[in-house]
């Protein structure tokens, strides 16, 4: 063997030994326990934490909120957090099968329970099979938008338009099994109760995917109204935008109007669900596998409570259109179960997607 070859082999061998040594130094043999004592309380500190989210998009609301809070949490609790956008099905599977040692947690929004409620995901992913943690953000921006030249300006007018034009059908672009299906079903139920099934039968679902896919369906003329977030759609409302892609927001799902904006809420248009004004905020929470050590749950709770007061965190979220809103694990569990149960009657009474889908 040449001298050069020997040197290369020596360098490679040393690099291998060094990398093994470094790997040994950084790994957590104690599975989340903090310190040398195996009986010490479990903690995320010093761990690598994989944050799985129920979306595959790295430009969507789930990623943006989760990535923001993960960055702040990583700093506060001194762990190495990484958001993995693996999609709803895989994230739910992870959270019901992963070891409860803090190496994997989930962040997601209301689709966590809506997906199961709508039958998109199996019952074994029901909230009861993992732990609902704290809420760290919410959005009051869910809305429905129509083409700017649509012959109605809000959802109440849309129902009147359908009543006055018995040959017209209105297709609303939504994503199956999520918040948009809930909003669609709620509107459909209200039209059905208020105007009867002849009119409601002409409110059809157009199943689509992400916001940009729904927008393209609207521009194609394949649908008439689309679900989205005000933050994403507001740019298309401007007068400066080409007529071909211009939109108008016909209803927002939050309880009150967005300050400085002229978008009507569902509630003020008289849209009700079960006799109550329809209000829906999309909420983003942490979820843990069942049997997660209480010490980890408590430390994350305490950290998010502090982060939610941090002006920088609030500003970061608001710059993207979200709001910081901490609810403790205990309060969020009660809140989320109640929210799910209050929607179950409407969901159970709604026609299936096959019936609601545009023909």
């Amino acid at each position, binding site marked *: 063997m040449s001298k050069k070859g020997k040197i290369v082999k020596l360098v490679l061998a040393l690099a291998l030994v060094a990398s093994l040594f470094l790997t040994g130094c950084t790994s957590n043999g104690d599975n989340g326990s903090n310190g040398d004592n195996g009986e010490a309380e479990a903690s995320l500190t010093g761990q690598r934490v994989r944050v799985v989210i129920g979306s595959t998009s790295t430009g969507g609301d789930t990623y943006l909120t989760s990535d*923001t809070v993960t960055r702040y949490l990583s700093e506060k609790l001194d762990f190495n957090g990484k958001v993995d956008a693996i999609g709803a099905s895989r994230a739910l599977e992870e959270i019901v099968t992963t070891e409860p040692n803090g190496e994997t947690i989930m962040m997601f929004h209301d689709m966590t329970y809506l997906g199961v409620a709508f039958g998109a995901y199996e019952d074994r992913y029901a909230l009861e099979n993992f732990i609902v943690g704290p809420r760290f953000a919410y959005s009051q921006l869910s809305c429905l938008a129509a083409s700017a030249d649509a012959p109605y300006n809000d959802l109440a007018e849309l129902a009147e338009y359908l009543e006055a034009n018995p040959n017209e059908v209105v*297709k609303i672009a939504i994503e199956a099994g999520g918040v948009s299906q809930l909003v669609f079903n709620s509107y459909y139920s209200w039209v059905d109760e208020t105007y009867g099934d002849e009119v409601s039968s002409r409110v059809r679902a157009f199943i*689509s995917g992400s916001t940009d896919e729904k927008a*393209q*369906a609207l521009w194609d003329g*394949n649908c008439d109204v689309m679900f989205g977030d005000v933050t994403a759609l507001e*740019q298309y409302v401007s007068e*400066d935008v080409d007529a071909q*892609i211009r939109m108008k927001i016909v209803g927002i799902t939050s309880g009150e109007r967005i300050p400085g904006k002229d978008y009507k809420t569902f509630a003020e248009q008289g849209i009700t669900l079960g006799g109550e004004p329809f209000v829906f905020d999309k909420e983003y929470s942490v979820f843990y596998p069942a049997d997660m050590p209480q010490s980890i749950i408590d430390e994350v709770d305490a950290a998010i409570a502090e982060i939610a007061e941090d002006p920088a965190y609030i500003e970061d979220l608001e710059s993207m259109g979200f709001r910081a809103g901490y609810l403790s694990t205990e309060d969020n569990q009660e809140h989320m179960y109640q929210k799910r149960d209050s929607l179950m009657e409407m969901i159970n009474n709604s026609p299936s997607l096959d019936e609601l889908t545009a023909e």
Partner: protein
Amino acid sequence: MFEFGMLHLAVALLGVVIGIIFGAIPGMTATMALAIFLPLTYAYDLHVSLYLLLGLYVGGISGGLIPAILINIPGTPSSITTTFDGYPMAQRGEGERALRIGITSSLLGGLFSLAVLWLFTPPLARMAIKFSAVEKFLIIVFAMTVIAALSKGNMSRGIFAGFLGVLTALVGTFNDNNMIRLVPEFLRVELIYGFSLLPVLIGLFAISQVFEEAEACMLSNRVTGSLLGNKVRKFSFKDFKGNFINIIRSSAIGTFMGILPGVGGSAASILAYAQTKNFSKKPEELGKGATEGLISSESANNGLTGGALVPLLSLGIPGDSTTAILIGAFMLQGIQVGPLFITQNPGIWNTILLALLICNFLMFFAMFFPIKLISKLITVPNCRLYPIIILMCVVGAYAINSGVMFDVWTLLLFGLVGYLFGKIKLPIPPYLIGFILGGDLEKYFIDSLKGAGGSLGVFFSRPIGNVIWVLIAISIIYALYDNRKSAKTA
């Protein structure tokens, strides 16, 4: 009006080099590189982030040509057509020449699309909107006609393999009613989203090749011995002589496919290759190491880069899966991309154009000059090379969906499928093209029907659509004629 300094140049170079590595490793893509580096960009301002991310994008798209040419494994889905002529050239001992042609074509395609992005973004965005689900469906059908062109002399097998590929693409959830189809009960969780593209691609190309080589005791030589040495044809810029129209056409097709939101980027090089074959004076040489095929494939897939930014920056709609990640970079910095982006953010817009220009040249220099070293890869004996390839493929497959073990099983399964296809003489490229395009084919078919109340007449109701029908018909008739001619001469 734009930001540029040493830091920007350094991060662009870093991005390009890392992107090339990602593109060159089978199973790792530009999309993955951007997703990994996206959270890091929060620490920098948007301008610096853009240099890094666009470097990763350009490098990632370009790096795929290295394994495609040298070991017949497309590093990225858009490099499939690069293997058709690049690998035969490498087998002739012209690996270095093929790499240089590929890299130069990539640069030309990238610069063409940059010029289009710079000069025509608003009108092209308006045009892109006129392409509804109907036109997108028809363009995908048009791209699929390459199956007929590729299957010359063996058309029925090729078309059968193509349809089998489409069928495989339909495995998983049907979004319109959330029902899972073509999936056995015990795999419902693993296959809810269907088979992932990358493990299927690498399995069919790399693992099946490893199985075949294992059968031959890893003794075969990838380079024809007699052609090694000084007799091998060297690269010269004269290699591009007579390819001016080919470069423009292929770059334009790549850019155009990028502009169309929702049509997979892999379709760009497939469509460009099909048209090069149709317009070629010597179509029979394509697939056997013709430079025009290689030029077409590489100029088209880099033509995609600027094209995919057109709808992103003017409509807020990403042109491909990689630019979809760029939206995250803007959003994390509190900037909305959409129809008002260019007028409201002229500084960022100029930075994007400059960064794309610099990244294209950095890609060229970073790949062109170390080629002598890279091209030695083809002389590494199979028994040493293939274990490394298997390792990289497994790591890539595992990482593609952030750690899904089923993707590794998919890789092995499709390695076996590819091996069996070889045994029964079923061609792999048409199967893969069917698989890549099948999902979009169904989506736009269904969307068109939903929008038209179920009437099939919608596919003949739009002027642009009718033009595409004519192109489809010409492409099929030509392929049939060519097939018949070659059958007669055989």
